[in-house]
């Protein structure tokens, strides 16, 4: 297990009260969702990554949990203005999942159980910036927070950290996701306050 990364280490050195513009601090962990919480049996769970040339990687739960994991402490920033600091997660780095995969794709489209989608540049999933997280605060991730496993991309607004992740498509062209196609910013950097189209 390793603790990462340069980016988050840097963030922890800032005063704990510093928040992105327009954000306020919460101590609880609000639950936001665009749909019902899916009931996912671990025996049925799978994670698939497909490349732009249709190369495919697939893990069942046991295979996924056999991968090396990392523990990270990160700040979360929701576009609905709340921020939660110093949250502890355990997950598998996207660097591990993508290791050795031949791709020239520039983008990723993430699809969840239940149909939610979100898009982001592939470079925002690599270099110790993103994880498939399955444990929060030392406990198995609760379904309301995305369990059994969710994407965690803490340097972007939290809608990018798709709950109940199932499929990551690597694409040559960008494809806006559920919120990005309806007014929300395509990238979503909280420190640039990129909430809506044109921000």
């Amino acid at each position, binding site marked *: 297990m390793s603790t990462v990364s340069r980016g988050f280490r840097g963030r922890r050195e800032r005063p704990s009260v510093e928040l992105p513009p327009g954000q306020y601090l919460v101590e609880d962990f609000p*639950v*936001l969702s*665009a*749909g*019902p919480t899916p009931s996912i049996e671990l025996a049925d769970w799978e994670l698939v990554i497909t490349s732009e040339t249709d190369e495919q990687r697939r893990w069942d739960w046991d295979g996924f949990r056999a991968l090396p994991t990392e523990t990270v402490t990160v700040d979360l920033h929701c*576009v609905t203005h709340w921020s939660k600091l110093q949250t502890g997660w355990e997950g598998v780095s996207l660097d591990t999942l993508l290791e050795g995969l031949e791709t020239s794709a520039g983008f990723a489209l993430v699809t969840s159980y239940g149909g939610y989608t979100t898009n982001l540049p592939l470079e925002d999933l690599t270099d110790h910036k993103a994880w498939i997280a399955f444990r929060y605060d030392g406990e198995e991730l609760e379904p309301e927070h995305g369990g059994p496993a969710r994407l965690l991309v803490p340097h972007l607004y939290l*809608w990018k950290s798709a709950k109940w992740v199932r499929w990551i498509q690597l694409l040559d062209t960008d494809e806006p996701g559920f919120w990005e196609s*309806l*007014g*929300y910013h395509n990238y979503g950097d909280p420190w640039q306050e990129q909430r809506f189209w044109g921000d």
Partner: protein
Amino acid sequence: MTSSNLSGDGNALAGPLHDLFRVEVTTAIGRCTNCGREGPMAEARVFDHAPGVVARCPECGQVLLRLVQGPGRAWLDLRGLAYLQLPVPEQA
């Protein structure tokens, strides 16, 4: 918070959509493009603990309507509705 209190019925659409259309949307009749169910929007399952408002078909769960409200503008997606029959006040 549990999943049971993450959503409400379609009456949660009344405020945000009245701001846009000035009509009583909850009594409007909609048809789901997925399963064909027809019924008052008040019967939709509405998720508004989210970055926007999402109304889903109570029968099949398809997204009927999405609404995002930003400063000075709003975005509305009605792709999940084959039609929406809106009540219109009679002209005097």
